[in-house]
């Protein structure tokens, strides 16, 4: 038995080495072709702006985009997302899924090391995942990302069973066995997320309360490591991690970061050549849209109006909701107000997020579910008013209180009341935190809200509107929608074709019911120096991927 196992291991090792050699070889030849043109050699250093300090580098405690950004750059989980959004080799080289889809067995590479020289083992994953759901840790993303996915995660978090009952076990040093609550087809992409990163138990326990508060109290197993950083620092450096198993792929030697919050200052620094990338706020876009380095970076966050069916009688009427979702010009909103490359959303699942099994974009296949159409909107409106037996309706719009949000709220209110005769829209603009409270209490009529994905699967959007879903909070309920969406996570979990069909059907139902009114899909406008090469954005998790980045010649 043991021998067989060893053989298997050796075989997979040889295979993985062969594969690594192949892909490495490819890159090298590409390099060789390029080299003569790239001479003289440029310094492989990039300077970037970060919007704020990195409050935490503890994978279990990280919650914000910056934590996940730098966790992604300095650490590596089972897999890593590549340029096409596909999982590529990480600490794991391959995995097998049991027939019922509930047991995943990952084979880990044996040459992966922490920056202190210790090997990265399966036990490091077991420890980190247990820590993430342990109620004593107080993690936010642990129970959120693992709950309902990994066996017993929720029970462990509630303290009902001890942490060692979590469905993750090490079988030797280099085999990780994960048991799931249900077959979870998107589990592969989940393993690239910050919360699922491994941790060196000895190191974490030795550092105690100071763990992950400075460069000295961190261990790295990814492409880069911090050379200077503390949790309150406004300036820090990342350098190439020579102990990374795939260090030969990493070309970038150093990244220098400074915290700059004022968009104008960021652009000024960019113009002075002190930083290689600067974000543009809406008011700066006009001035810089003709700049040579102007770029639009697409995003997968979708924004929509939630139409609460439980508070305002008018919104309980499907025709009224259908009218509202067609009665505002989204194109003008993204062009005039957002002005940053954001695009109109005519469905729920964003564009360029997930492909269907036959390789097309889900959004494209699903098509426009609800578009701006005043004529149709008016028809629905008349019908709705007749059913309600009234001529006038007042609806409150709940939205954010940031400058751009206010403009959007006012614009939407104006569009709706102009295009739908007899409709009066009042505004309620509150800070984000308060909006969440009103959402939880379902104390609103219409709400301007949005959602960013937590994993690469339409389910991350579709499960929002399940009856009594944690984020539904608008009284939407359709048994058929529930059935279709739930099937994708249970009975049909292992059948990509059938799941895709269900998602398509479910999205159609959602808009036949006019449950939400999609508005736009976000993008951001930036100035990016042409010398920044090979950096790409992820649909979720770490915003930027730097593993394959390099500095090109200046011009």
């Amino acid at each position, binding site marked *: 038995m043991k021998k067989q196992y060893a053989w298997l291991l050796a075989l997979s090792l040889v295979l993985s080495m062969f594969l690594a050699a192949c892909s490495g070889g490819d890159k090298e030849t590409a390099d060789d072709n390029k080299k003569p043109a790239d001479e003289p050699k440029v310094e492989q250093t990039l300077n970037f702006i970060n919007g704020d300090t990195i409050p935490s580098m*503890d994978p279990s405690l990280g919650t914000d985009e910056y934590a996940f950004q730098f966790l992604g750059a300095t650490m590596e989980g089972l897999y890593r997302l590549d340029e096409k959004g596909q999982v590529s080799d990480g600490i794991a080289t391959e995995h097998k899924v049991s027939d019922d889809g509930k047991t995943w067995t990952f084979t880990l590479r044996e040459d992966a090391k922490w920056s202190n020289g210790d090997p990265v083992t399966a036990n490091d994953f077991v420890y980190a995942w247990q820590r993430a759901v342990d109620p004593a840790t107080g993690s936010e993303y642990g129970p959120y990302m693992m709950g309902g996915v990994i066996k017993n995660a929720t029970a462990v978090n509630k303290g009902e069973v001890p942490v060692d009952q979590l469905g993750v076990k090490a079988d030797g040093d280099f085999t990780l066995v994960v048991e799931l609550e249900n077959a979870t087809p998107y589990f592969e992409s989940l393993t690239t997320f910050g919360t699922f990163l491994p941790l060196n138990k000895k190191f974490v326990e030795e550092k105690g309360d100071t763990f992950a508060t400075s460069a000295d109290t961190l261990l790295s197993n990814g492409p880069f490591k911090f050379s200077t950083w503390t949790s309150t620092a406004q300036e820090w450096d990342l350098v190439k991690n020579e102990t990374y198993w795939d260090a030969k792929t990493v070309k970038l030697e150093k990244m220098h970061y400074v915290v700059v919050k004022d968009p104008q200052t960021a652009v000024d620094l960019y113009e002075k050549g002190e930083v290689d990338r600067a974000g543009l706020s809406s008011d700066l876009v006009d001035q810089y849209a003709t700049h040579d380095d102007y770029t639009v970076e697409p995003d997968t966050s979708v924004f929509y109006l939630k139409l609460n069916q439980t508070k305002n009688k008018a919104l309980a009427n499907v025709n009224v909701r259908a009218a509202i979702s067609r009665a505002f010009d989204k194109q003008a909103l993204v062009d005039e107000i957002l002005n940053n490359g954001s695009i109109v959303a005519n469905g729920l699942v964003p564009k360029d997020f997930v492909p269907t099994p036959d390789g097309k974009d889900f959004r494209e296949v699903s098509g426009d579910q609800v578009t701006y159409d005043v004529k149709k909107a008016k028809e629905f409106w008349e019908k709705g008013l007749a059913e309600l037996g009234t001529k006038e309706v007042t609806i409150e719009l709940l939205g954010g209180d940031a400058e751009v949000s206010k403009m959007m709220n006012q614009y939407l209110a104006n569009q709706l009341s102009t295009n739908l005769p007899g409709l009066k829209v009042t505004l309620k603009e509150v800070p984000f935190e*308060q909006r969440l409270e009103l959402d939880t209490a379902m104390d609103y009529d219409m709400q301007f809200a949005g959602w960013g994905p937590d994993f690469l699967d339409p389910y991350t959007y579709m499960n929002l509107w399940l009856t009594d879903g944690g984020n539904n909070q608008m009284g939407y309920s359709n048994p058929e929608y529930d059935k279709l969406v739930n099937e994708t996570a249970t009975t049909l979990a292992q059948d990509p074709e059938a799941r895709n069909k269900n998602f398509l059907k479910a999205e159609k139902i959602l808009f036949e019911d006019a449950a939400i009114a999609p508005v736009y899909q976000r993008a951001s406008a930036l100035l990016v120096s042409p010398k920044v090469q090979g950096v790409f954005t992820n649909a979720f998790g770490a915003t930027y991927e730097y593993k394959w980045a390099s500095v090109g010649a200046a011009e």
Partner: protein
Amino acid sequence: MTRYLLRRVWYMLITLFIIATFSFFLMKILPGSPLNAEDKLSEEQKEIILEKYGLNDPIPVQYAKYLGGLVKGDLGVSFKFDNTPVTAILFDRIGPSALLGFQALVVGSILGIFLGLMASIFRNSPIDFSSTIIAVIGTSIPSFVFAGLLQYVFAVKLGWFPVALWGEFEHTILPTIALAIHPMATAARFTRTEMVEVLHSNYIITARAKGVSESGIILKHGLRNALIPLITVLGPMAVGLMTGSMVIEQIFAIPGIGEQFVTSVMVNDYPTIMGTTLLFAFGFIVIILIIDLLYGLIDPRIRLAGGK
């Protein structure tokens, strides 16, 4: 004098206690919680985390615990920066703010006094008018507008100074000027008004009659007396610098305490909000105490009244 000082320190402690109490309860009225993924967690999951941070206790219990820590000099651990004590954050951030504030106060008052002095000597001349115009502009235009202008002209266009960031002395120049403009304007106005008044008083006429030189009259007899009311406005000026620094630090991307204060309010980082508020309050109280003591040194009448 010692008794006076002791009494003042006692009052200071009471003031701080009242401020701590007010801020604590005001802060609890802020909507939201320090959780970041609030929209994603179930009620049960939220409870588990709030429990860990001690936020499930009744507010009076939390308040008692906080005061207990405060007495021991423990400001708690930040919610935003995991495992980082608030005192460490404050120590980390106070340096740049204190340096900028000090430089701005010195530059502002020296320039302001000089401007005011010139205006009062050459009264109703072009010098006087331009000084008044500078003073009016300085008081009425907010410092962040100056900051943006200075940054654009001297850093972006002329390239004389760094655009932003922190490190060398040259990084402090533009923010110091931006911060100094308001104190300068205030000092100029006060100095001019007081000097004009003082120069008309009887003892100046006496000094003149005794044949004291003009420079002696202005500097020794005039300015010294004119400065007393100026010291009164030093306090409000220092406070102005503290609040002004919140915006200036953001514009010049300076790792200061004002910038930190704004951030912690935005993310509901309760211990850091309390820590920075108390630090601002403490700074203000100390400045007022120093000014009161200075008063006694400069004006003998006040010393008598305070020392009884």
